[in-house]
């Protein structure tokens, strides 16, 4: 079985990759078909994932774990929203209300907490790691914020030059990081494509 899963994964990966590199009609059609199948599998995976979420919460409730009341809340709201979406459709007024009145405000408040968390983390950064790179990181972050934010007296003199100066370092650093990440991702993908890493089929 594990050889079959590996063979399917490697063959599909190679066909999709060749479809990108060699745009022949047959390869493009085959690539399109495999991608469509993958989308269907991914959609099924979402259902499996949600089922996993429900079972984990049910298990917590059954064992009366700490804060399991949130698990009850999660399951009830999930089933209610899912039911409403199933009966009235995903674009119905009820689903829109659930999104606009609950999901969006909750995520917005988490975003606000994130902003506070980041400020707090920046304040504690020097206590955690007092080295040259940390100082540079903080100085650049503060300068960028000062230059970018609007002031009551209008633009700060020389802000454009300072921004350009900071961009020289930030842009080159960003490119360097992205090149490194691209190389890492390329090698990781090749290992999966060759079946060296097989995070599927119980290998």
């Amino acid at each position, binding site marked *: 079985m594990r050889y079959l899963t590996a063979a399917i994964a490697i063959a599909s990966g190679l066909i999709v990759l060749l479809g990108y590199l060699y745009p022949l009609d047959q390869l493009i059609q085959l690539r399109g078909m495999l991608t469509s199948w993958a989308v269907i599998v991914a959609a099924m995976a979402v259902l499996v994932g949600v089922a*996993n979420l429900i079972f*984990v919460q049910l298990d917590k409730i059954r064992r009366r774990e700490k804060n399991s009341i949130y698990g009850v809340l999660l399951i009830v709201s999930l089933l209610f929203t899912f039911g409403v979406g199933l009966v009235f459709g995903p674009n119905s007024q009820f689903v829109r209300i659930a999104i606009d009145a609950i999901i969006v405000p909750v995520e917005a408040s988490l975003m606000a907490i994130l902003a506070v968390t980041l400020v707090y*983390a920046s304040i504690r950064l020097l206590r955690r790691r007092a080295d040259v790179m940390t100082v540079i990181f903080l100085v650049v972050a503060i300068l960028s914020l000062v230059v970018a934010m609007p002031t009551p007296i209008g633009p700060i003199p020389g802000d454009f030059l300072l921004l350009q100066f900071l961009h020289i370092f930030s842009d080159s650093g960003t490119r*360097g990081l992205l090149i490194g990440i691209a190389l890492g991702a390329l090698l990781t993908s090749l290992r999966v494509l060759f079946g060296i890493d097989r995070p599927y089929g119980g290998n």
Partner: protein
Amino acid sequence: MALVIVVVTALLLLAFTFIRRRSPAVLRRIDAFERLTQAIGLAVENGTRLHVSLGRGNLFTARGGSAFAALAMLRQLAERTSVSDRPPIVTSGDASLSILSQDTLQAGYKAAGAEEQYRPSTARLTGLTPFSYAAGTIPVTRDENVSANVILGDFGAEAALLAESADRENTHLIAASDNLSAQSVLYAAAQDPLIGEELFASGAYVGAGPSHEASLQVQDVLRWLIILAILAGALLRLVGVGF
């Protein structure tokens, strides 16, 4: 051109893997991985858990690379912690990744000869949007007797919430992401952030095998080739050759 790059990289990977099978590589010291080894030992010894968060890397997008790197590390962590009374908990924010994490955990236990200890509920999908994923993961760091958190994969700025939660619980935190926003917030919020491609080196540092060590060497070779190409390009432009 893209085909040439892929073929050359693949050949280099195979050649270096063959070489590394005979002589293991000597890797430079990275503090985060040293601390991870200590944290694994500590978790096994004092009966606490390891929490591995794999992020939201969709396997059908370019972000899948970091997810695969995280899964390779998870495989090793599962094998190493299989002797512990409390299995590691894995959280993710993508459904396909969650299923693969269950499979990877099971494979780790199987390799360690402790398959009966595997519980599917230890690999969880905690949310499908960035903040719902963070909101679902924070209780795991708080309520599940976790002593070390490994946050590895594709995250956005919400990684700061996870780092803050780990910090509040006084647990170890090893964090890496392929996303630049997450890297910058983790640099500020985590004790041991891994920068840039260090995420993809994680497999080699936890003993995932010669192919992972070979990958690092191939990355070095390619990096030098890119540096030479950039220098040559700048030089040609300087002397007036357009391309």
